[in-house]
């Protein structure tokens, strides 16, 4: 896949994810939407690393240009951070479900 197609896909994913985030009332759906959006942002960084006719940025893969290694390093960090945040938010959703017996945003927003 070339860089432009990957970028377009990434931006489409971000849009889809954010749309789900706004439209859905269930918190878990919202978090799923966010996860898709963040996946899009991460894919976008990978697309930025693209160079035409390049091999993956691993030493010893032969002559010729390699893809830019820096965004790949960033992507690893971003994935880890995102995983941690998502895990924590799901813990909070479990907590709220047990206390308030709802995952609906409108119900959660009422005074407890």
């Amino acid at each position, binding site marked *: 896949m070339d860089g432009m197609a990957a970028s377009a896909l990434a931006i489409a994913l971000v849009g889809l994810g954010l749309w789900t985030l706004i439209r859905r009332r269930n918190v878990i759906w*919202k978090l799923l939407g*966010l996860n898709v*959006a963040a996946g899009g942002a991460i894919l976008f*960084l990978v697309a930025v690393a693209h160079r035409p006719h390049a091999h993956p940025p691993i030493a010893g893969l032969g002559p010729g240009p390699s893809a830019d290694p*820096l965004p790949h390093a960033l992507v690893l*960090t971003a994935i880890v951070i995102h995983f941690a*945040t998502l895990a924590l*938010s799901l813990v909070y959703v479990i907590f*709220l479900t047990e206390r308030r017996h709802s995952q609906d945003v409108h119900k959660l927003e009422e005074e407890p």
Partner: protein
Amino acid sequence: MIYAIGGVVIYLALGVVGFLVRPRWLCGALAILAGVASLALWAPGFPEAILGGTGWGISVAGDPLALGMWALALVIHGVVLLHERARPGAFHPLLTLLVGTCLATVLSRDLFNLYVTLELVSLLSFLLVGYDGKSRAVWASLQYLILAMVGMTLYLLGVGLVYGKLGTLSLSAIAALGSGFSDPAVAIGAGLLVAGAAIKGGVFLFGLWLPPAHGYAPTGVSVTLSAVVVKMGVIALARLAEALPVGSASVALGVLTGFGGLVYALWERDLKVFLAFHTVSQLGYMLIGFGLGGEASHGALLYAVAHGLFKGLLFLAAGQAIETTGEREIARLAGRLAWPTALGLAVGAWAIAGLPPLAGFTAKGALTADLLLPMQAVLVALSVGTAASFAKVIPLLRPGPTREASSGGVMVLIVVLVGFGLWGFASRPELRQPGKWAEAVGGALGGYGLYLLLRRVRPRLPRITLDRATAVALLGAAALVAGILFLG
């Protein structure tokens, strides 16, 4: 540089070790000592250097901004430690990690490193906001989490666009390229970066997670969040304004957040949420100052530190009041506060209204010194509004017969605030002019008049819900990107 990085590493290490050691506050206290030692060793600053090798690494620098934020963070950590020293469990280790991450954030000069530290700051803040396990605080924390993730997604897209076009993540390298917005991709990227940082920093219409999160968090956490953590978003915006021509966007955000936060603060009845809306409003002063740059950014730094001190004091006193009486509404707290708490609120309100001789006056004086007339008018209007909304706190200042086990935190912050104010007088002769004093007192009196005028007015402000906050943040981001793209 090595001392500053060493300080951060020791701070974070002591945060981790703190999970294992009893008493829980011990490692926090040791970390503060290490932080003070490190600050003393690297003050008055160090030039930009690259951490982690030659050519490839993370740029860090110790400028006055970092210096001021370090001093503020260490003072506030000490005060929170005093107030919350009896708290068991993971509270103190998490707090130490949070402050340590803030210390790292202000040193960073790298787009992606800023992303990492800001994410860590939020992650630790989420844990602390919901620490008491009250469902309202947990819900506030989850809202914070969701909006922060939106912000960081936008920020990451911005990083990708800027790196893709300019080929570097170092802010000073980007500034040195000086390409401005010759390429529309860079302009869009800059807009996304600013929007992400604004969402993270709690700027009005972008980060509407801030009032509930700061309002419903435990006392010590509210103090830390409002005094130190909220500045991290501002710092990120200030750094971006140094590298890319987004100064005017920052000023626009500052005006928006200044008045937006103020309108909500004027009619808020819950004491801590009221203070949180004021934090939103006061971000405006800092964003305007940093956006204008030059002498104004020096004033903005002074204001950021002063705001940390007086807002920390206000949240500490308010938290003590709520803890002792069990009431949150301003009207119901009147006459029920113990005298140290009432004194803390009084001094904090005095400082936030910009009255001499406290830190608020010094900082506002430095900020407005060289501004053009329209900007000065904006800041004066904000001052009057702040005084007006604080007028409803006046009945709380009459101490009641309540007894409380007061912590020394309030007294420490009062002493620091007065010291800051006096230092301002010593170093800035123009603050000693009677005209400036008359201006400040006039502003406060005007505010009281405005309060009397508005007392009978009860507008129905739109309720802030998660869906609205998210939608507004995204629309704001789109507007910001369009603004930067088409207006430069």
